[in-house]
């Protein structure tokens, strides 16, 4: 891995953000709106539900964590789409940069993009709704690692689709996370799902992450085994995502789609 090249590609996306105030605003706007919306819903449930009566902010914390996953995935997709939209795709793929360096650059830059959007929203939630994700303590770091790996995996799968099918796959980029959200048990316990869906849900890291988050906030106990289980599952998916990306890249070379991308 050549870190100068990873830095160069990261810099390309940072310049893009820094050159445009509306772009920064757009990054911050949607997470903030989410926090407001879920903040009020959370407040209502806290006052009206037995399940949440003793715990303030479970839903809002879940919304913040889910948004972290969503932003990570979308950031990865968006940076790849930017190359297609700007018709820079050919220039990028003929540059002497390894495919794994492209993946590394997008993965690293996606965290910066995600945090630009999410940190202001998280800070707003503290005074406005009295909810801080930091209440999760040390396990928060591991939960975020697991979520990030899974978010990047989804990004890798969508970008693989873009390589395979071209820009027409773009809409899937936006829909991918909504497809998995019901199975992720973000706002409700896994028992709500029908039996057969519970089996599918358990092979996703999301269930383990959000179940653990609820457990920490409601019982103030941490089961690190569950957290590491979610990280292991996320890592397996991440490796699978990288493999699919490579397969799509070699497939795109075979089909010749790399030279026409963006046209």
């Amino acid at each position, binding site marked *: 891995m*050549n870190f*100068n*090249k990873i*830095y*160069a*590609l990261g*810099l*390309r996306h940072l*310049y*893009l953000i820094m*050159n*445009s105030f509306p772009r920064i605003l757009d990054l911050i706007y949607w997470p903030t709106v989410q926090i407001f919306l879920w903040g009020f819903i959370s407040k209502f449930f806290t006052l009206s539900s037995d399940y949440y009566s003793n715990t303030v902010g479970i839903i809002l914390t879940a919304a913040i964590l889910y948004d972290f996953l969503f932003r990570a995935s979308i950031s990865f997709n968006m940076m790849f789409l*930017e*190359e297609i939209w*700007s*018709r*820079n*795709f*050919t*220039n990028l*793929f*003929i*540059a*002497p*940069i*390894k*495919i794994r360096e492209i993946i590394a650059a997008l993965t690293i830059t996606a965290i910066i993009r995600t945090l630009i959007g999410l940190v202001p929203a998280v800070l707003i939630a503290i005074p406005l709704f009295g909810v801080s994700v930091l209440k999760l303590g040390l396990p928060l770091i591991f939960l975020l690692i697991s979520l990030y790996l899974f978010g990047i995996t989804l990004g890798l799968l969508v970008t693989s689709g873009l390589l395979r099918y071209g820009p027409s796959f773009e809409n899937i980029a936006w829909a991918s996370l909504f497809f998995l959200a019901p199975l992720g048990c973000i706002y409700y316990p896994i028992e709500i799902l029908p039996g057969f869906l519970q089996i599918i849900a358990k092979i996703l890291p999301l269930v383990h992450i959000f179940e653990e988050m609820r457990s920490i906030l409601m019982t103030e106990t941490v089961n690190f085994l569950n957290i590491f289980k979610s990280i292991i599952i996320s890592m397996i998916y991440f490796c699978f995502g990288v493999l699919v990306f490579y397969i799509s890249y*070699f497939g795109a*070379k*075979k*089909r*010749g789609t*790399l*030279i026409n991308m963006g*046209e």
Partner: protein
Amino acid sequence: MFIEIKNLSKVYNDYLAVNKISFQIEKNKTIGLLGPNGCGKTTTIGMLLGLVSPTKGEIIIENKNINIFKRDEILKRFNFASPYVELPKKLTVRQNLEIYGRLYGISNLDERINEISEDLDIKNFFGRKTGELSSGQKNRVSLAKSLINKPEILLLDEPTASLDPDIGDFIRSYIQEYKIKNKVTILLASHNMSEVERLCDSVIMMRKGKIIDKGTCEELIKKHGRDNLEETFLKLARSKDEF
């Protein structure tokens, strides 16, 4: 021989885009790749750049099959410019050159950017976003990017397409001058015959994925009994025969 293309073919599903083409390029020579639209020029360039994998055949650089080189090792010796491929529009000219300079691992980057931008007269719009530039300015920036690493092998796909005669002439003169000052092997795909006559040491004529003739411009004009390369091109492009 510097570059050897041996029986190179590319089939997309059932469509034969490039059909067993073979040619050689000597070091520091400029070869024109001519042919009507859809004749396989872009696919050939794509295969040389590693963007398209050949169905059959070999690309040999300095007696070594291109496949034995690592991707980044071989690509740092190449570069490419085409008006159909753009640089990120929302980045300034300076930022784009910086990014590509870093990607190509240029050590004295500021110096190289200054040098190339003075040569191509792009310094006065360094701070402007690339998407806001005129076609002529964009072409010069694209050419600057393609020369940032002082490539040994430069592939140019219609470098003066859609430019006014003045800017077109500036680009052609610059390439001509650059060739003299630097050691570079150029493969130029173009529909502008006077450009090809001016810049190329020899030309390869393609039609329907095949090479139908090759030689120096003078040789081809003489061989086909025409007055200039444009008329020769028309004869070859419309003919059903191979030569």
